[in-house]
């Protein structure tokens, strides 16, 4: 009985990366909608984590996120990235207005067969529990509207992936610099863990006096 259960709730590094990338997909879309960056009519509802999440219908945004997140998943499953940041900039002045940071911290997991090889660690955390934790973060993301300043300009967003120094730059990717926000305030939201990765969500925004 116990062995059956163990094999049932077994999350590998790859699976953990999948869960996180899925969270990023829904999280980023939710931010795009909640912060009013794109017109509301370009979003359609989608059910996930027991929530209604609004997802962008814009083809270009979908392809962009698809490409970025596929690459992210690959790096995550090799533990080669520790932070993803979603940067919201003023499309005209290029000033950085807001930066959502998703910090990933590798965890040891609790799999019994972790024979020293970090790529083979597993976690037995239940998916439902992880999704509940994610749901709480998603709710917090939509609740941020009440305190974040209004983005009263045409905005664009970008996703930056913080990787190890020896990471090869894939085709169609560029190396870029750290962004900084003038007079920044940071708010840390809840975190969740897959057992192999702990994901923290932080929003940095520009304080307006």
């Amino acid at each position, binding site marked *: 009985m116990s062995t059956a259960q163990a094999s049932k709730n077994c999350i590998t590094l790859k699976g953990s990366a999948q869960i996180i990338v899925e969270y990023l997909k829904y999280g980023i879309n939710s931010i795009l909608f*909640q*912060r*009013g*960056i*794109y*017109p*509301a009519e370009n979003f359609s*509802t989608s*059910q996930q984590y*027991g*929530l*209604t999440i609004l997802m962008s219908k*814009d083809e*270009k*945004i979908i*392809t*962009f*996120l698809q*490409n*970025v997140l596929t*690459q992210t998943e690959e790096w995550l499953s090799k533990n080669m990235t*520790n932070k993803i940041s979603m940067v919201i900039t003023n*499309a005209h002045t290029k000033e950085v207005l807001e930066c959502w940071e998703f910090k990933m911290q590798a965890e040891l997991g609790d799999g019994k067969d972790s024979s020293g090889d970090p790529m083979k660690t597993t976690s037995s955390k239940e998916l439902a529990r992880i999704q*509940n934790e994610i749901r709480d973060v998603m*709710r917090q993301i*939509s*609740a941020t*509207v*009440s305190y974040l300043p*209004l*983005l*009263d300009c*045409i*905005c*664009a*967003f*970008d*996703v*930056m*992936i*913080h*990787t*190890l*120094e020896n*990471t090869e*730059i894939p085709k*169609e*990717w*560029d*190396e*870029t*610099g*750290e962004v*900084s926000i003038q007079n920044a305030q940071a708010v840390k939201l809840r975190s969740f863990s897959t057992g192999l990765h702990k994901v923290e969500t932080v929003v940095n925004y520009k304080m307006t006096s």
Partner: protein
Amino acid sequence: MSQFNFVSDLQNALILDGETRGPPPRWQKKLEASLNGSVNTTRSVLSVSYNTSFSGVQAPIKTPGKCADAKANKKQTPTKTPGGGDRFIPNRAATNFELAHFLVKSEKGEEENNDSNENNVKASAHKDERQKLIAEVAQVPESGQAAGGSRILCYQNKAPAAPESHTNPLKVVYSIKTPISTKSGSRYIPTTSERILDAPDFINDYYLNLMDWSGDNIVAVALGSCVYLWNAASGNIEQLTEFEEGDYAGSLSWIQEGQVLAIGNSTGAVELWDCSKAKRLRVMDGHSARVGSLAWNSFLVSSGGRDGLIIHHDVRSANHKISSLSGHNQEVCGLKWSTDFKYLASGGNDNLVNVWPLALSGVGTATEPLHQFNEHQAAVRALAWCPWQPNTLATGGGTADRCIKFWNVSNGSLIKSVDSKSQVCALLFSRHYKELISAHGFANNQLTIWKYPTMVKQADLTGHTSRVLQMAMSPDGSTVISAGADETLRLWNCFAPDPLASKKVSSVKSMAKQSVFRQSIR
């Protein structure tokens, strides 16, 4: 001199162990030349200053020209010469020739042994340090460069910016002009309050339900730790109870008929009070945290707590707890039985609306919700059942949502959703008109009357200076009382029956029923 240039170029080309670099920049060539040839003091100043200044950290970076410049400046003229390009233009006025000469003399032997490669390395090491310093000063959090061993990558084909015509829909939340022009409806609605009552210490908490109007025309309201009764007919004020230090009433609800008031308190208990005698009848516990919502269904009182539970209490029996519903995982802040008492609607801080069907036994509800609506993007506190369509439920969301949504609970479909442009705190259907009134928060703190089902705005009732937390309707259905976070209660005579229409109604309906409720409100 040209032969020396050639030799140094050749030397550089033969160095194989270093980083592959382009040809050395011009300043370096000149430097070489000047060192190999006769000593030119001014030029040497440059070379000396960067040679002496640091220990070589082995971090090769490609372009040394700029930083060597900057370095030299730092030592002697910290502000002037613009760095950039491969040229060094000495600022003679600021150059300390004596010091330079001394340094050249004392370091000369060592200097000659240094080949350009080493210069290069040292200069770049300095660049690293300088960047680190700049990063620290600029307060770049955890700069990738400074932390070492990380690079930031981004995808080349960026997502498009929002179209130029786009304006942030959230803008309405921040920048509504006050007052909004309102479309005048088909009937006259007074837009100012008829009467204002002071409500000091009214708790400004979105999750509590602190006012109710009974069938006997008594308004119960909780102010701070006290519960007061205001007789709307006579104007009498009575203090019903006062909670002990730190405790307070989280919700008040009158039984449909009679003078029994249920009070959900901050300790998680539901108290029943006979208000004609100002006596507490019983205390029913069950919640582990404060009770923020209550709803009566004849002998049954349902309570929703901060623990996310909804408990049905049978007030007649000693063993009062009938069932407990766990459909919410955060505070339950809205609870309403439908007008035909077939469904119970609950709204929570988890943005969910649950609709519970009547239990098979006929007492309480089933423990699994019939419908779960998760379309709201914020906490749902405002719930109202339509009196003329018993299966229509109206729900309103908080700041992040601002929508009023209508649901058909028979099939669980969304009938309509309207963006009210402000936090929705309470909803009520009128009994006389096919209309709906909603209470709002920032920016106008108004009550809005809507035509149903078209949802055309009829009137905005303004007056509150802070968000309107609670609304209740008088037993005759003509007056609405609103409680605001500005610590006032306001009475609005917005659903006064049309004298012509009411004549027709009264001739049809029995007068006996009317007479119970036709009590004037002073």
